[in-house]
């Protein structure tokens, strides 16, 4: 389910020519591959926001983190801005998942990646499935 909800992020990024070109298609789930061209972006699920009711648990969205890696700060900031502007508040229909809403949460500078001289920016997003397929 987490990969499924994360596919909303994938489609949002993949379908945007400006972002896809800026990262040259380097958009990966969970782990940054060892041999990759930069800039690159990794997305992964942070938490599954579940609320408990007397009828069992219900979803309150899933929180995702996006990690942006680039050789210089300007490039990293540019990609972060593109992602933020696109997914600040985005409703999209994702194949086999349904109607989803992505909303931007927060952004911060992370510790540069040691040994690779890479700048690192982190963003948080929430994905809610509004109407399952």
């Amino acid at each position, binding site marked *: 389910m987490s990969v499924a909800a994360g596919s909303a992020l994938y489609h949002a990024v993949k379908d945007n020519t400006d972002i896809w070109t800026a990262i040259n298609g380097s958009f990966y789930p969970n782990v940054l591959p060892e041999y990759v061209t930069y800039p690159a972006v990794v997305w992964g699920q942070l938490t599954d926001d579940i609320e408990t*009711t*007397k*009828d069992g648990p*219900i979803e*309150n969205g899933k929180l995702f983190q996006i990690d942006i890696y680039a050789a210089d700060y300007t490039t990293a900031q540019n990609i972060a801005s593109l992602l933020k502007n696109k997914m600040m508040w985005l409703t999209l229909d994702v194949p086999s998942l349904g109607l989803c*809403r992505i909303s931007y949460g927060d952004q911060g500078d992370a510790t540069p990646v040691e040994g690779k001289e890479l700048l690192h920016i982190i963003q948080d997003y929430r994905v*809610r499935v509004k109407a399952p397929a």
Partner: protein
Amino acid sequence: MPVIDGTDLRIYVNGNPIGHATSCTLDLSKEIRETVSKDNVGNWAEKEGGQKSATLQFEGFVTNDATLNSVTVNTAEDLFDAFDSDSLIAFAFSDKVSTNVEYTGNSIMSALSFGAPVNENATHSGSLEVTGPVNKVTIP
């Protein structure tokens, strides 16, 4: 005998539980009147029980699903209909476990509130004022 899990105690409105409820309470109260007479000359107040009353309160998430876990439940729309109705609403405060005790009676829905925060699940809450007695019944 273990303590009853609060998850299982529910308010039943017209025979069905409130869907996606998160909390419910049954508040019972009794008016107390002070009895003063010429035969009561001590320093201690004496009191007698007066009128009893009860209120039920509930909270939960808004759902339009009339069936949850194969059980028919009250939806947000059902709650509004109960509020809008002039008829008395049969209630039960029960875990529906055989041989346990449940509390039943009639009520009027005196308050119903829907909350819709941005990017969060929509919520409801409300109150039922009991009219007449609260009956203690052993669940068959």
